[in-house]
């Protein structure tokens, strides 16, 4: 039980993966070089990159435990991006090499064409004929078969341990190991076909295929690391999903800006939310929004995330309006026209609501004089009671409201 639990820990699991890749690298490079197989040698170099990645995963698990500080506010997770990009670049160079050796092998089948191509492309590698025979067949087939089995068994456990301990980089490494198993499966089919059909040229066709698969892994690693280092956005799909999650929440008026990027495997989202709720309610919003956004990001494949939510009020849209008032003693109502009005409530409006109103008597009751007075007070719109269409008089818009009750506009205490 003790042994099982030790290998079930992230460190124990990564030790197993490391030993597996080390054995594969030694076996494949030795056998591949001995039989001059670009397919097996290429896969051996691919496993060198995997070996470095295992070290990287262990380092990433260690780095992830280091809390952000004043010098590294987002932590040190981009270390992983740097190494990933380097491995990706290395794999691309290696894939180019295997492709070159495979092309050289295929060209060797047609010596005239080989000569012509080599005159144009002198950098093409020298071809060493593939060694086939009963003395090496057991080693070649045995090595590739054991590699396939190991890759599938180990990847399954690595993913399980990664998920159980919450290490996304370990899960990703496990998935890549499974991908390696598929490549090795293709190599096994190629090797068996060579011996079955006595066709060494199959080696080079499969070699080209393997070079393509390795270069694809290289491009993915390079792109992932490059995007994280240059702080590329997590993409429109993620940002739209974030916005939708925010807007589905009571109290959120809108999302003004979303900035997303990755620091290593950590997804960082900086979201500016527009809301008019009071400060105390913002604490509730912030807490639950964070929970929801973290869950949504995990659904989108970003298991680790860091959210920065900023709250801001919606636009004030400050302006000034006036209500034409007819007043007799303490009784007052909205006047039916400017001509009928005796007073005006001059109102400051914010977000559509009157925040300050002051009853004022115009210096003159002449409509032109009243309009000039309103204009001087920066009033854009004046309201009167009625059901007519709005009309522009000088620079002031005269609009009708359906009630004469002053209490209906929030300009006096009800």
């Amino acid at each position, binding site marked *: 039980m003790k042994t099982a639990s030790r290998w079930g820990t992230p460190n124990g699991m990564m030790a197993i993966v490391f030993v597996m890749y080390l054995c594969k690298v030694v076996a494949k490079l030795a056998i591949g070089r001995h039989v001059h197989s670009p397919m097996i040698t290429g896969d051996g170099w691919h496993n060198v990159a995997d070996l470095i990645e295992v070290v990287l995963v262990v380092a990433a698990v260690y780095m992830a435990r280091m809390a952000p500080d004043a010098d590294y506010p987002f932590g040190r997770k981009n270390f992983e991006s740097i190494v990933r990009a380097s491995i990706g670049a290395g794999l691309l160079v290696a894939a180019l090499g295997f492709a070159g050796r495979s092309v050289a092998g295929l060209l060797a089948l047609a010596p005239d064409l080989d000569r012509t191509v080599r005159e144009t492309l002198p950098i093409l590698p020298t071809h060493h004929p593939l060694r086939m025979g009963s003395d090496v067949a057991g080693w070649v087939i045995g090595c590739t078969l054991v590699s396939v089995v190991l890759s599938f068994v180990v990847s399954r456990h690595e993913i399980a341990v990664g998920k159980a301990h919450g290490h996304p980089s370990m899960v990703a490494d496990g998935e890549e190991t499974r991908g390696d198993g598929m490549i090795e499966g293709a190599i096994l089919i190629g090797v068996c076909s060579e011996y079955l059909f006595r066709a060494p040229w199959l080696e080079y066709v499969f070699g080209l295929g393997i070079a393509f698969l390795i270069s694809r892994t290289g491009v993915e690693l390079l792109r992932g690391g490059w995007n994280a280092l240059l702080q590329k956005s997590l993409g429109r799909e993620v940002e739209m999903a974030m916005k939708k999650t925010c807007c*589905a*929440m*009571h*109290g959120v008026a809108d999302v003004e800006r979303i900035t997303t990027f990755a620091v290593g495997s950590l997804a960082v989202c900086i979201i500016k939310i527009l809301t*008019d*709720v*009071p400060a*105390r*309610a913002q604490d*509730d*919003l912030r*807490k*639950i929004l964070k*929970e*929801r956004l973290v869950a949504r990001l995990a659904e989108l494949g970003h298991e680790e995330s860091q959210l920065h939510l900023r709250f801001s009020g919606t636009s004030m849209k400050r302006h000034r309006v006036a209500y034409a008032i*007819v*007043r*007799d003693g303490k*009784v*007052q*109502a909205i006047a*039916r026209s400017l001509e009928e009005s005796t007073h005006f409530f001059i109102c400051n409006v914010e*977000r*559509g*609501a*009157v925040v300050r109103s002051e009853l004022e008597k115009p210096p003159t009751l002449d409509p032109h004089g009243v309009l000039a007075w309103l204009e001087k007070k920066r009033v854009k719109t004046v309201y009167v*009671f*009625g*059901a007519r269409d709005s009309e522009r008089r000088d620079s002031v818009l005269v609009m*009708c*409201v*359906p*009630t*004469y*009750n*002053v*209490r*209906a*506009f*929030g300009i006096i205490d009800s």
Partner: protein
Amino acid sequence: MTRIYVCFNLTPDGERALAFGADLAAGLQVPLAVCIDADDEAEILFHDCVETKPHVMEERAVQHHVCNVLARGAVNVRPEFYRAQPSEMVLEPDAILIGACNVSALSTASFIAPMKESALRSRGDGPICIPWGKGDSCRRVAEIALPLAAKLGLSVVFYHTTWIDPQLPADALPERHMLQEVAENLRMLRGEADHLGLRHEAVIETADDVVEGLIRFALRWRSSLIAMAPSERIGIGSHVTQVLERSVTPVLVVGRSRS
């Protein structure tokens, strides 16, 4: 549910209440009663109106305005107009008034504070959250909120937060901290919900603060509405008043007991 009442006014909150009320009335297939605040005193200022009285002109203009708003929102609802404040009217016990009201002056009718939302389901078809405790206020809430959920096709989530019983082990489930009367009320609520064929769940927590726990729970569960009733035994510190001050989720406050 017999009617949804809305006070007509032209403030942003008033316009939102009208939209919220119209949407709810359409969902419940009941009339929307629009109450026009009558200022009869002011009528004397329009003494030159001979053919048509000012209040008649006002009623027509308000009706025209409300019908335009409903048409713009494509809401299929029949509005009725009353020239009175809802507080002056004898409302049906199961009527719901839209717009924040004074809890201490609450009649037998209920009200919904829309909390800046323009429709009950503007953020999705979340459940109606019904907090319950040991008192009988949850019975009054059940009488109004459960039929409301049934008519709107919404599910219900019952929420209770309890003080920790220090005699129980630290890892005891929250249910074990619950009082006997609270458990009995839950059985009653479940029975009522089953009777109406509602989908329902019950969640029990040991939150630090009742109001904070409830508000955050409603947000976490994407509730469309929190339904609660003021207890008639509370002196100060009413949970209903605190929730009304702090919640961003619309709140249904059920009116006082008819008895």
